[in-house]
């Protein structure tokens, strides 16, 4: 056992993540990062200092007991290690892949002060993958409390709430509007970053915990939230995410060949149009693809377009590299694959051909002015710097706003001026028994912050349900 060996001074550098070569991976949809081997995982785990006052946990929105699971891993106790993670996080295979650990747990890691932080996310992923390959243990069921909870949306927030409340013995029913569960994990994040089989396995785990799932149930149009409460649900969690795609309101934006990132990614990820015509949903991609935006969704779109066979993919972003909200790792991956970036440029209008298909885009150069509300320097157009780019496919990845269906069909539900649902830090809305969390409350954010919100809401909902029983 590694623990019995004399412990050498930990290496400053992390064990690198094995990846598919850029030249190869740009032509396939298989996962880019292939995951640590057992040896690599043990080596990386050995770098953990096992701090008496671990800072990493404070950086984790769901408070995974990081040093404890790393210690168990180091001791070769993989089963116990994954169990330790699952005490706090029901979806480790997903978090290990898509969490921005560099801004969370790993940012706080003491090893980061002397070299690279411990690759906590990669270790989490290793354990989750190990467990999945071996076969996931069916969790023990708690005796039923007799309480029933409706979870609206099966994305990261909803799945977390469902898992936590089911574990506590409440009857959970998940209503998913699409025909497949997983929310953004399925329709938004591409296969090469998060294989759909992994999402399916995590959904199956939540179902094994006792949660029931209905696909194709659009709450608001089918049953409304007040009706769910009337029909015997003791509490409702709303985790409907950031649905509505934003457009820029520019001339020519409705030309053919201009997709919202949501449309593009839904076609490719959820509907598998990369396998058209084996799968029935088409996608048409030209040779010169332009992606507008600088977030993770823009990266995902650009890298998907490349894999679909685009000759050239260029990201157009109105600020500079430093202000890009995308994960650094993803920008790096994208550039390695040959994606071009045009910084400090903003589209102004689109030109179409005689068939109504986009053929060019006019942009204006930008320069950075003083910081705005987000703390990033505000881009300002440079007068007279307009230029035209040839393009035959444009993907608009400039953000998403909340889907309004629940808000407009739930009488009395307090909503912000941005259309997000108002909820306190525990996800409690102004309606008794109704909780909300994730992008529908915060606006577009990350998978893990949605899970963190789900975690807190589940705790508050559990307390609410217990109190409700006591009062009866």
């Amino acid at each position, binding site marked *: 056992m590694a623990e019995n060996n004399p412990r050498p001074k930990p290496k400053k550098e992390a064990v690198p993540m094995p990846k598919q070569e850029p030249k190869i991976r740009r032509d396939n949809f298989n996962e880019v990062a292939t995951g640590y081997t057992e040896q690599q995982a043990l080596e990386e785990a050995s770098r953990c200092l096992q701090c008496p006052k671990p800072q990493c946990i404070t950086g984790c929105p769901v408070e995974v007991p990081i040093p404890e699971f790393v210690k168990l891993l180091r001791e070769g106790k993989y089963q116990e290690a994954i169990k330790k993670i699952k005490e706090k996080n029901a979806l480790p295979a997903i978090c290990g892949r898509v969490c921005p650990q560099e801004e969370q747990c790993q940012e706080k890691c003491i090893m980061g002060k002397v070299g690279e932080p411990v690759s906590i996310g990669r270790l989490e992923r290793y354990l989750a993958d190990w467990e999945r390959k071996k076969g996931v243990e069916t969790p023990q069921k708690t005796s039923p409390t007799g309480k029933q909870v409706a979870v609206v949306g099966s994305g990261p927030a909803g799945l977390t709430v469902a898992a936590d409340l089911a574990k506590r013995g409440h009857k959970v029913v998940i209503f998913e509007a699409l025909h497949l569960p997983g929310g953004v994990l399925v329709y938004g994040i591409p296969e090469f970053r998060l294989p759909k089989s992994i999402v399916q396995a995590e959904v199956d785990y939540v179902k094994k915990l006792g949660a029931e799932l209905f696909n194709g149930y659009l709450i608001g149009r*089918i049953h409304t939230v007040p009706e769910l409460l009337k029909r015997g649900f003791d509490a409702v969690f709303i985790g409907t995410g950031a649905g509505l795609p934003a457009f820029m309101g520019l001339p020519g934006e409705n030309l053919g060949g201009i997709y919202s990132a949501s449309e593009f990614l839904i076609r490719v990820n959820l509907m598998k149009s990369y396998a058209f015509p084996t799968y*029935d949903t*088409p*996608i048409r991609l030209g040779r010169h693809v332009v992606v507008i935006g600088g977030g993770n969704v823009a990266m995902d779109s650009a890298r998907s377009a490349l894999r679909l066979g685009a000759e050239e993919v260029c990201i157009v972003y109105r600020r500079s590299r430093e202000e890009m909200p995308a994960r650094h790792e993803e920008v790096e991956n994208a550039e390695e694959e040959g994606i071009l970036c045009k910084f400090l440029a903003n589209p102004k209008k689109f030109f179409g051909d005689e068939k109504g298909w986009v053929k060019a885009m006019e942009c204006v150069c930008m320069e950075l002015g003083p910081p705005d509300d987000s703390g990033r320097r505000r881009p300002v157009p440079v007068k007279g710097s307009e230029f035209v780019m040839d393009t035959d496919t444009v993907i608009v990845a400039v953000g998403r706003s909340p889907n309004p269906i629940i808000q407009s069909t739930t009488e009395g539900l307090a909503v912000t001026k941005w259309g997000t649902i108002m909820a306190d830090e525990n996800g409690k809305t102004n309606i008794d028994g109704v909780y909300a969390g994730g992008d529908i409350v915060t606006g577009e954010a990350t998978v893990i912050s949605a899970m963190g919100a789900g975690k807190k809401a589940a705790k508050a909902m559990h307390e609410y349900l217990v109190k409700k029983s006591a009062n009866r």
Partner: protein
Amino acid sequence: MYEILSKKDLAPKIKLFEVSAPPIAEKTRPGQFLMLIIDEKGERIPLTISDYDPKKGSVSFAFNEVGKTTKQLGLMKKGDSILNITGPLGMPSSIKKYGNVLCIGGGVMIAPLLLQIKALREAGNTVTAVIGARIKNLLFNQNEIKAASDKFYTATDDGSTGCKGLSFLKEVLDKEKFDRCIAMGPVVMMKEVSALTKPHRIPTVVNLMPIMVDGMGMCGVCRVTVAGKMKFGCVDGPEFDGHEVDFDELVNRQRMFLPEERLSSLVWETVGGCKCGGK
């Protein structure tokens, strides 16, 4: 899974399915649509709901076998199951007493038009119904619509039955005052109707079915320009003010995937599950 309870031929290549979907049936109102996906390799397509029966727990929809998905659907039989149906989607029609209403339906949309007419009649309106198709044998529901309305016209593009084209409406509109017009059918038809009612200032509602993927506001492919503003067909519609819709843009957007749609259909007919060889 959603079971097909009955299947009816309305006209050549136009079929009506009644499927079991109790929660959808309970909530549907006229004007709404559903999204359907046949199997896990399928595409999601929007279809206007033609009828609903909350007691029986069923909804009905008509479709025209034009593409791969609708052709595949057409081969399904009573008792077969559809992977997923999501609905009811979109804003329901505003059904109230307007007075004298002109209801115009073309092609496959004649089926949901009947539902509109019945609801408007029940709300106390006088209804003049017009149904149209390319040729005589593509018309259907004549008797039902005739029985449900106060006045009834038919029209065909070639004049094989009823009036030839929709230009006869000019006279109708000159003679009679209408308080509202509803048009559902091919985009060119709705465009023509809107142009005819505009000089008479008759509030005209058109029911748009642009290309959709999710049908609930997520993808934005169904965007249409109405009064110069971007609207989503699925959540802001499907009904819009016909005098404000940019129909030419809509026609263009509906043709976006035409080559792919043809390819998909061809593959299905030659090597896919149909094997009819396009016959």
